[in-house]
């Protein structure tokens, strides 16, 4: 799957990309680069529900702690558990091996209206 071509991004630097009937959510490489060395990651439990824009995970770099927001409302169906044990892997790859959670999203079309494609996102952050 090509992440950059297919994903949508939020202003708070989360990405979301369709994968079968589910959606994969993570942080963009720009966000990871801004954070620096990642040293801590806390993910929700499978089955948890979050509204659009709600905090579903916490991430910390050496410098600071940040919250991660769900770009659309949904239910957590899978979490990337390996990443919790070695969050530093996010500094190498925040897509293929570095996604955070998978969700089912019933209201995707409506919730995703303010999200940007990668090119627009890139010009927004640069």
């Amino acid at each position, binding site marked *: 799957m090509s992440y950059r071509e297919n994903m949508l991004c939020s202003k708070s630097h989360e990405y979301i990309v369709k994968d079968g009937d589910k959606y994969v959510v993570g942080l963009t490489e720009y966000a990871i680069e801004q954070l*620096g*060395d990642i*040293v*801590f990651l*806390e993910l929700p439990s499978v089955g948890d529900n979050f509204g659009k824009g709600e905090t579903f995970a*916490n991430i*910390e770099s*050496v*410098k*600071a*702690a940040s919250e991660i927001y769900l770009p659309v409302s949904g239910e957590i169906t899978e979490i990337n558990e390996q990443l919790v044990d070695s969050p530093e892997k996010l*500094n190498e790859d925040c897509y293929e091996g570095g996604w955070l959670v998978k969700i089912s999203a019933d209201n995707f079309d409506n919730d995703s209206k303010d999200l940007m494609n990668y090119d627009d996102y890139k010009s927004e952050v640069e």
Partner: protein
Amino acid sequence: MVKETYLHGKHVKLGAKMVDFAGWHMPVQYSSIIEEHKTVRDHVGLFDVSHMGEVFVSGKDATKFLNKVVPQSIDKLQYEKAVYCQLTNKNGGLVDDLIIYKIGIECYLVICNASRIDEDLNWLVRNRRGMNVNIDNQSHNYSLLAIQGPKAINLMKKMGYNIEDQKSFTIKPAVIADVKLLASRTGYTGEDGFELLMENEYSEYLWDEILKEGQEFGIKPIGLGARDTLRLEAALHLYGNDLDETTTPIEAGLSWSVPKDKVSDYNGKDIIMNQIHNGIQRKLIGLEMEDRNIPRHGYEIYYNGEKVGIVTSGGVSPSTGKNIALGYVKNIDQIITGTTIQIMIREKLHDAKIVNRPFIQKRNKV
């Protein structure tokens, strides 16, 4: 306006991530904080700390004057020696923490925190009444480079430094890469190393030379991010976090820097002496998390369900892989080294253990 050191252009060119720190636009990291941290612990790192303040205090009453504004016995300080001390207010709280160097007869160099230069100068001027002393802020004319790490001495020698056996906490005129400067064997990392004070115009040349000559020793430029993790592991206080105007040196665990037998008076002496003899209400502790959560500045500390204090500096310790912090707690007998306490992180309590400071074995004494 945000200030820039003489080396600002070098940092930008090296691709450093720049941040505002105490009114200065400074490099927080060049590559990775963890990588830079390990470079200093294992090899050698170069820091631009030119934002720090340099104040020269001289005149007939210079010794008497400094003796009146810090708890340390400046009258006992010998030529070319340095002493860590604090500028106290009337309540024994700290206006700043400093290193004072004796560089001549009735002539001292005071190195102070960038964020506190104005307050320090104000306080010094207010305290000099009736004394023959000249307070000369030269911060804008000098650059300060720190070379820190186990290979610092090798690099210095390679660059022409030829002083035999310079001890820690001494300062000497030296020649490095043909530049005349003052070399102080001090630092803020817990490692052996030097802080080099030079006139601004030489700083760019020396910065480049040190990075070039240091290559064989694995040198890297080090930003403020790693400076913070290094000093935290060494349990060195950061003014503004661990020290402020309401904190006394005794509460801050700095009793070792407060002589018990000093005869002359200084600001806050009654309160500080009273604390030495009768105890304190709160004390500085070092702590280590029992899980992977990271304690940070401002987080609350709990013991037996009761809030007993606050974290003042915290973060990861790249050298030990632990998450560590400094903080203040109520001074009760039950809270001692080995005691399990809790830190409130994201509305949950997480166990931590009180441990001895520093968090690593310091190697800065030579």
